[in-house]
């Protein structure tokens, strides 16, 4: 290739890459905007919140919103309850969904097809219809107004989708590995635990994350099922900063909301590497 053509090609490539980075940057800014705005709002005094020309950075940053939020509402207790409910739900959902997904992915029968159909259909039910039977069951089990009761609800709610997700991950694991394990004398349970589960790790983590975040953000079930103030979860407590007709105590609400986003962010940042690493490992094995 002639040097001029070579230079042109390199310049084109560089321009293309710069365009990609620019697009990525725009996308990141778009994604990060709500969070950055929330961060900025949480540190703004009331007078800076209601101005026609809002600034990105607080002109007079203050901790007052956080102080007020903590003074008015039991945020730490609510976060602990949310953590318990969401963590418990995520754990139970993946423990239950993993073997179920394995069966659904590996055993093709009328029953598994029906189960798959049911999983899809169950996602279409609105909360208000589901809550009635759930309320009845929990009442009979004396689990109204209890975090374990809420965990049960969240598991019920997230299980179908968790199952759906994990079935896809199981299908991506080559069946030849199981055959090899069988040749080596491993039973079905051993194969699942020692061969399939490690390969499924990224999928399990992603599913757990989904179940966790769904439960962490859930408001309606928590509002209806938990009566005692000491059992309320974060989304319910956040609504205590809202008045009638949507009027809000914006500063403390932003401060409390910022705290509410932290566990998800931390979890994502910790787990992200695990998911990526796991995926690459799977690719190499395949």
């Amino acid at each position, binding site marked *: 290739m002639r040097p001029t053509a070579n230079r042109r090609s390199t310049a084109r490539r560089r321009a293309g890459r710069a365009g990609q980075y620019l697009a990525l940057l725009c996308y990141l800014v778009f994604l990060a905007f709500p969070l950055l705005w929330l961060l900025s709002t949480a540190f703004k005094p009331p007078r800076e919140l*209601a101005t026609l020309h809002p600034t990105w950075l607080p002109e007079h940053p203050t901790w007052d919103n956080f102080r007020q939020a903590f003074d008015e509402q039991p945020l730490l207790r609510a976060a602990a309850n949310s953590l318990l409910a969401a963590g418990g739900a995520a754990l139970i959902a993946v423990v239950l969904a993993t073997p179920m997904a394995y069966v659904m992915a590996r055993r093709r029968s009328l029953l598994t097809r029906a189960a798959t159909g049911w999983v899809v259909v169950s996602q279409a039910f609105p909360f208000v219809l589901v809550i009635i039977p759930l309320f009845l069951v929990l*009442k009979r089990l004396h689990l109204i107004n209890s975090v374990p009761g809420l965990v049960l609800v969240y598991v019920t709610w997230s299980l179908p989708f968790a199952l759906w997700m994990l079935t896809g991950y199981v299908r991506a694991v080559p069946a030849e590995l199981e055959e090899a394990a069988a040749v080596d004398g491993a039973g079905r349970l051993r194969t699942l635990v020692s061969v399939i589960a490690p390969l499924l790790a990224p999928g399990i983590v992603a599913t757990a994350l989904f179940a966790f975040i769904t439960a962490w953000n859930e408001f309606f079930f928590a509002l209806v099922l938990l009566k005692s103030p000491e059992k309320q979860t974060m989304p319910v407590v956040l*609504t205590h900063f809202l*008045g009638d*007709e949507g009027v809000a*105590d914006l500063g403390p609400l932003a401060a409390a909301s910022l705290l509410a986003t932290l566990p998800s962010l931390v979890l994502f940042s910790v787990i992200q590497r695990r998911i990526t690493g796991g995926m690459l490992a799977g690719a190499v094995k395949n």
Partner: protein
Amino acid sequence: MPRRSLLAGALAASVAAALPGCSAPRRRAADGSVTLRFQSLAWQQESIAVNRRLVKEWNAAHPKIRVEYVQGAWDGVHDQLLTSFEGGEAPDIIHDASDDLADFAYGGFLADLSGLLPRPLKDDIPDHSWQTTTFGDGVFGVPFLQEPRVIMANRTLLERARLRLPTAEAPWSWTEFEAAAERLTGDGRYGVAWPLKEPVSATLNLSLSTGGQVFHRGADGKAEVRFDAPDQEVPRVIHDQVNTARTAARSTLGMGGSDTLPGFFGGRYAMVPLGFSFRQQILQQAPEDFAWTVLPAPAGPGRDQRQGVSPQTLSIAEDCPFKEEAVAFLDFLLRPRNMVRLALGDWMLPTGRAALADPALRTKRHGWATGTALARHLRPAPAQSVRGYPEWKDKIATPAFQEYYSGAIGGGALRRKLVRDGNLVLARYQR
């Protein structure tokens, strides 16, 4: 809210039938003391503090009747209470708004307080306030706080325009209000901003001043929607301000009250009709040199200043095993002195006459005097006891008013939608 009616129907049909005999656990301790759960919807810092302090004072003075303060939330309160009632888990003392009580009262979930309330409390609150919590023959809540709609105005702009500042004794007529908005419009500024994200209650409540009622009861007690000349006057003013005179900002039609405040502080809007309690937000958020004032809402013919309100209420659950004790707590909470403290905490008006007369609420500072002067003109919101109103509001009236105010439809189409489609909705509730 469609979810509300769906949930109400579904729960009433199935949960109640499936859970016979489930009731709240009795909470009388071995020493004879009882514990009552009080779910409060107070949400502002000062208001929460006052409520908690009052509960603390009560508990200190009444060790045998302990009250547990439970923080509730306005968001989703109807659904939360409904499931609580159905499951026998309702709080003993319930804070809500009077326009949310009808379904609970007719559903038998709330205790009839008419024979339980002490005479001084009964007499202190005017009859028209009691009407907001009276359903059938029973009284199902104590109305204790209310807020009129007032006009928050930029004092500097009004003085510069040499406008007569209206008072509760000499309010503007709707025509004067239109003229004032015109005088205040110009230089990129609108005379008025109507935050009408929820246009129905604002329109209906203000329309009382022009004789508008919208809901009319027939001899058989059934409610019927009409939209006659007195009902049309206030909507016409708003429509004309937005679409003809251009003295009202079109962009604020979809806003909530708080959303208009930056424009108000920035001088983009000279006047904003808002609830009385918004003063607290203005005080907290306005620039320090911002001069503002509270004006009464415009009056109708004959200086009619009536407007509808849905007071905040305190009720007692029918399931509560200690109703007399709960009433004793209500009586304490709503003593004139305490009612004043609650009103100050919420920046609202008390319903009680004695509390209203308190000097703390008669001060000119922050517009308190204007509000207290309006108190005698406050009436039950027109839709107060109409069954099916929430559905009419959500499915028919809200979109119809939004279309009308934005100029998408005219007065004739608005009337057709509200009346013809609206009565079909109400008919389903009144068979």
